């Protein structure tokens, strides 16, 4: 396949960026989107150009590093799919594809398509620990958890922290991410002792990082590669309210 790429190039967060055009004549439909960038980068290195910086690591949809905005959509055209799992067979010969970084003031650009998402790390850290006894391993079935609760907690825990929700939100809100991280513990017995303090601290940290507010548009849920439900945002709001009343 012949693919024309319009890629956002930006040397650093302090210099202006622009789209540059690259033509690739032999893209295999079995390539992943990132493998196409590998091939392009090898070519750029050989010809003495600066390769395109982009984040990636596990390349199987679980680490949350890949973060490309493809033709105006976070992680590209497929639902429930990260960029690394997007394969070129979903594009056509002759296509032109625009690739941009996540754009949000809380995610400053490092270089090209690479943005600094350490704001998410700080939000998670603000959540703190859960009280759990170490020493001897606990019996696996000593704490019964209803299956629907376990399933919901698991679905919330599927969030990989990629930031697609922020990138796609018109307010650059991080509510879907933070609410998933709050919910995965709030739904389980292990998360109860610190339930109130956790939600307050995480919301506080989220606001301090400069993410926007939630206006219930739901774009985040549509673009989330792990299909995290908006229900989590409702749960977080309720927990936050309860925590403040309890004080």
């Amino acid at each position, binding site marked *: 396949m012949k693919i024309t790429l319009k890629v956002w190039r930006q040397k650093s967060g302090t210099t202006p960026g622009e789209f540059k055009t690259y033509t690739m004549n032999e893209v295999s439909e079995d*390539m992943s989107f990132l493998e196409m960038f590998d091939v392009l980068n090898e070519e750029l290195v050989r010809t003495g150009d600066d390769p395109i910086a982009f984040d990636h*690591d596990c390349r*199987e949809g679980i680490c949350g590093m890949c973060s490309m905005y493809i033709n105006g959509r976070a992680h590209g055209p*497929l639902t429930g799919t990260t960029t690394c*799992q997007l394969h070129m067979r979903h594009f056509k010969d002759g296509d032109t594809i625009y690739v941009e970084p996540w754009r949000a003031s809380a995610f400053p650009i490092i*270089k090209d398509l690479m943005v600094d998402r350490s704001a998410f790390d700080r939000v998670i850290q603000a959540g703190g620990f859960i009280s759990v006894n170490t020493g001897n*391993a606990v019996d696996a079935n000593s704490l019964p958890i209803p299956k629907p609760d376990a399933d919901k907690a698991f679905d919330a825990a599927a969030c990989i922290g990629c930031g697609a929700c922020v990138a796609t939100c018109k307010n650059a809100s991080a509510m879907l991410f933070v609410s998933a991280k709050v919910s995965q513990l709030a739904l389980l017995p292990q998360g109860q002792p610190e339930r109130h303090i956790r939600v307050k601290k995480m919301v506080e940290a989220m606001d301090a990082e400069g993410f926007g507010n939630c206006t219930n548009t739901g774009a985040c849920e549509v673009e989330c590669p792990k299909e995290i439900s908006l229900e989590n945002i409702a749960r977080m709001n309720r927990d936050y309210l309860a925590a403040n009343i309890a004080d």
Partner: protein
Amino acid sequence: MFARHEMLDVVIIDGKARGIIARNLVSGKLERHFGHAVVLATGGYGNVFFLSTNAMGSNVTANWKAHKKGAFFGNPCFTQIHPTCIPVSGDHQSKLTLMSESLRNDGRIWVPKKKDDARKPTEIPEDERDYYLERRYPAFGNLVPRDIASRAAKERCDEGFGVGTSKMAVYLDFADAINRLGKSVIEARYGNLFEIYEKITGEDPYTTPMRIYPAVHYTMGGLWVDYNLMTTVPGLYATGECNFSDHGANRLGASALMQGLADGYFVLPITIGEFLSKEIRTPAIPTTHEAFEKAEKEVEERITRLMKIQGTRPVDHFHKQLGKVMWEYCGMARNADGLQKAKKMVQEIRNNFWSDVRIPGDANAMNPELEKALRVADFIELGELMIDDAYSRNESCGGHFREEYKTEDGEALRDDTNYAYVSAWEYKGDNQPSELHKESLVFDNVKLVQRSYK
């Protein structure tokens, strides 16, 4: 937390590990960090093969630096090749994806009985299929251990019975399980895996068998540690996959999680106190100490040397070359001639890398090519040690299969009289052969036997 930092050396003061040199990957600046002890939890080195199920950033650099500063490397040649991965689709392939082991509970593995059978798998009648695991291992069938399942797939493909465009794949078929249990049961059990498979290959495993092939998944070898998880360098600890312990020559399913939890949750928190209790009066050592100066300078010189080469080929070119050699000669099957040949090839790759690699950009900025180059330089050195280790072990044992040492029906043949030991390699300097130390495996209450899966 130091995100986007990479450890590039360990700092030793008076024989004890006292800190690290790290590179800030965003600014490119080298940093010094002091600690009374250093704990490595850096994972395995499967990416020495270029293609593996590991994340792209996984590397051996921290471990390798520790090794060069005195930590013995245990059983480097013991690598696990996992039988159920999605096959390579072309030269562009950057990594391999694992399809969970659990699929073998309900999937049946087969190849056509006829060589180069061009028919679709669903068109091949039952009596023209070779369910080779069920045939060779009637007692365990599709559930034989990973090393055996992997070698059996390689054997069929090497004989010309492989499937798919590359002919380097076998079928993992769920048709029987779907007939027996219904599609909904299979969906509940493996729905997420089937979805991943469909995304990558564009094929629907509910209606056509999956194609799978073995891929590098885990490294049982790693830094040698004692029962307290301390390496041979006092104060330097290694936990999880980066150490050599727990798995011997063949890790079994789910035990990597077990090791991560055991090492991190239950062992190290107790044992590191043994070392730290004696350091309670040791004040923090300022990072202006000469040992930090020296270590940082060495790292800086290595980076400068790499940046100055300005050759013609990108880092991945050498990494792929190295991976091919390791996979071919030090992968699922090894033999003395091949290993000798591979050693020369790796030395050649090393020379070419250090004279012809091209790293664009600046060392004092975000530079992913430089990051890769620093890692590949260490992978190349590690590759040679893995080959030495595989060559020195004249037996077949778990993931280490030496073709010269097998039973009449092709199974691994161990030699417990001469090789019941852990090999712990000591680094002796650049271009010097490493020294092999042997830690005998002594069993008081059990008798060493070989398990049969027939």
